[in-house]
């Protein structure tokens, strides 16, 4: 049994194909259910975002699972199977799990480090879980993947630095002013980026937004959208004195704000700093402004430069993240291996044998009167009882060993007999984990996580 992922992403498929393969929530669930019905897989989760559509399956035959996935995708998108084949990727086993972890950690994203993917993955899993398409393996695997995503986020700085012009501008403003609560931003010219920047600033606590434009109507319109106040363009200089952050994006062919103007304004505002952001081409703000004390000027090139630097930093962080993924892959693998039949039978037998010996030892005092021969007989008797009891489960488990559902039996056996300290896994910590989770399925311990239930989500 192994995990198989089949899908397309921004790295392999054209936007056109990606668009056709976007699945609504209903479709996503139906795709997963169809995969289960085709009997090529015993668990399935389908993930669909604007940059990727992927089907995760737990199957015994990776090739059959892949074919089934392609068929289902072709059916839902109306795309040709051959067309799909050419822009498709498919991994199985370790490769698939590593891929899942990399996707959740946003290492495979178009913008490395973006935060949305964790939520998208979570809802894809929840949907499949509630639709009854997941079971022991995926319930655990996807929760683990979400944890990996979280871990990468907290342990690396992969999502720290902004990689868009508007958020870089906000980051710089924060570096100058600290908190932005009491500050005022002035937007000169009603461009799209300035609107975006204003929205970002608002998210960081800025309350006073002034908007000005040569045509007052456009200013009013933008002011309404960003929750600011429109002011007359002719009074620019007065408003300049009242503003801490100035974002300019007019289409004027000449400088709208000159150095002299800034110097006058600064005098009016008693030299409290002003941060100028010029996102217009050709530039609106005199580059000389940056030489004025307490005035800081960043133009579009400077901002792009910051963005580039931040991108580089994210790449660096991605290396740390890859290491985390590798580490987590190992721990999940240990657990998956424990779901195999043979080691489970061995562990079960070991456990029983241990119990038998312990009981015999406990009785040691009472058995002291027996002759050696009698003691040997007691030993044989108990051993044969244990063997007899274990005979049927062993035979049955070996019978189901080849079937798709065998891991469910294994999980049940491990849960019922609490087979935690098994020898099949070299990693003690990982097995300990597996044990706690396996115990969770038992009705006994209060507060434990219960698998197999639809409402139970990470």
């Amino acid at each position, binding site marked *: 049994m192994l995990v198989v992922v089949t899908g397309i992403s921004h790295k392999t498929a054209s936007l056109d194909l990606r668009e056709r393969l976007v699945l609504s929530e209903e479709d996503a669930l139906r795709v997963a259910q169809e995969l289960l019905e085709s009997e090529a897989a015993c668990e399935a989760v389908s993930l669909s975002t604007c940059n990727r559509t992927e089907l995760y399956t737990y199957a015994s035959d990776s090739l059959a699972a892949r074919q089934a996935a392609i068929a289902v995708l072709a059916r839902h998108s109306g795309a040709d199977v051959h067309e799909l084949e050419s822009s498709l990727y498919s991994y199985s086993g370790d490769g698939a799990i590593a891929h899942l972890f990399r996707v959740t950690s946003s290492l495979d994203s178009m913008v490395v480090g973006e935060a949305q993917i964790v939520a998208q993955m979570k809802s894809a899993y929840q949907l499949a879980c509630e639709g009854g398409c997941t079971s022991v393996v995926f319930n655990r695997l996807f929760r683990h993947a979400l944890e990996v995503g979280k871990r990468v986020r907290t342990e690396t700085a992969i999502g720290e630095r902004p990689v868009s012009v508007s958020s870089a501008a906000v980051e710089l403003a924060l570096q100058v002013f600290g908190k932005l609560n009491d500050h005022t931003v002035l937007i000169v010219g009603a461009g799209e980026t300035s609107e975006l920047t204003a929205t970002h600033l608002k998210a960081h606590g800025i309350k006073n937004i002034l908007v000005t434009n040569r045509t007052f109507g456009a200013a009013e319109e933008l002011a309404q959208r960003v929750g600011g106040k429109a002011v007359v363009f002719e009074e620019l200089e007065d408003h300049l004195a009242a503003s801490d952050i100035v974002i300019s994006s007019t289409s004027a062919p000449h400088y709208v704000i000159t150095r002299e103007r800034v110097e006058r304004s600064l005098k009016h505002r008693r030299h409290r700093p002003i941060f100028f952001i010029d996102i217009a081409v050709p530039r609106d703000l005199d580059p000389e402004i*940056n030489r004025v004390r307490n005035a800081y000027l960043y133009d579009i090139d*400077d901002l792009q430069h910051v963005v580039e630097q931040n991108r580089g930093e994210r790449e660096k962080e991605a290396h740390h993240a890859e290491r985390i993924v590798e580490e987590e892959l190992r721990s999940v693998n240990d657990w998956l291996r424990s779901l195999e039949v043979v080691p489970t039978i061995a562990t079960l037998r070991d456990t029983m044998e241990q119990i038998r010996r312990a009981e015999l030892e406990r009785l040691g005092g009472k058995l002291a009167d027996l002759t050696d021969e009698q003691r040997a007989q007691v030993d044989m008797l108990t051993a044969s009882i244990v063997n007899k009891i274990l005979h049927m489960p062993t035979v049955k488990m070996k019978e189901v060993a080849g079937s798709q559902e065998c891991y469910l039996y294994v999980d049940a056996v491990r849960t019922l007999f609490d087979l935690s300290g098994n020898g099949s896994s070299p990693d003690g910590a990982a097995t300990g984990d597996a044990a706690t989770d396996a115990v969770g399925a038992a009705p006994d311990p209060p507060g434990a996580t219960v698998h197999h239930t639809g409402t139970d989500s990470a």
Partner: protein
Amino acid sequence: MEHASVIFLWIAYLLYAGAFAVFVVQFLTKSPTLTRVGLVVAAAGLVFHTLAIICRGFSAGHVPFVGAYESLVMVAWSIALVWHVLESFTKMRAVGLYVLPVVLILLTVAWVEYKPPVQLVPALRSDIVILHVIVMLTAIGCLYVAGGAGIIYLIEEALLRRRKAGGVLGRLPSLGALEKLIYHATLLGLPFLTAGMLAGIIRAETFNVPHWWVDPMVLLSLFAWALYAVLLWGRMRADWVGSRIAWLAITGLVVLLFIRFAAVPYLSGFHTYGG
């Protein structure tokens, strides 16, 4: 007692060094938990530092401010203390990275100059002298912190202007926060400096110290006092924002360092036993 003091100071030194290492890692990884860890470790260092001073006080039989070793340990202690107080008010997490090296350097110099405790010379056996010293040390702690913040301010401003802020963005405190720190540290330090100088003058007058007003250290202290007064005056009038304040704080720091490391050992007439 003296043994205990030395051991405590070593523990404090190691804790400060550990806290500094934590802050360095924090700077590189930006983990918020590490900042808290660093602050707690540094606070533990401060506790042992305090114990070391108390023990030294008992073993010497007086407040330990005599000689280079004692006074440097005291200055380092007051910087660490002021930093912790300001930190808890301003919640400006990143300053530890810059304060701790100063504390560590001062303590290292103190180790080099270590001398066993000595009896107070009769001239120093006076309550007003002890008051003078303690108040002055507090003032120095505050003003060192202000100067340090000024240095970071100027570096950061230069980086921002030259578009080289990439590596420090979001890691250094903002310019606004640094400026506030300079202001608050000076606001706290100047009254102590004033009180300390007054105590010194009272003591000099009552004991008829000859020509105390022409002592280079006194003159330099007056100059420093004027600098800080100008800083506060300029900032309160709100016209002097940012770099000018930072420059004043740094100049003040230079004067204070000059007093400590040049004027006291080589020039001063009657402050020499301050070490």
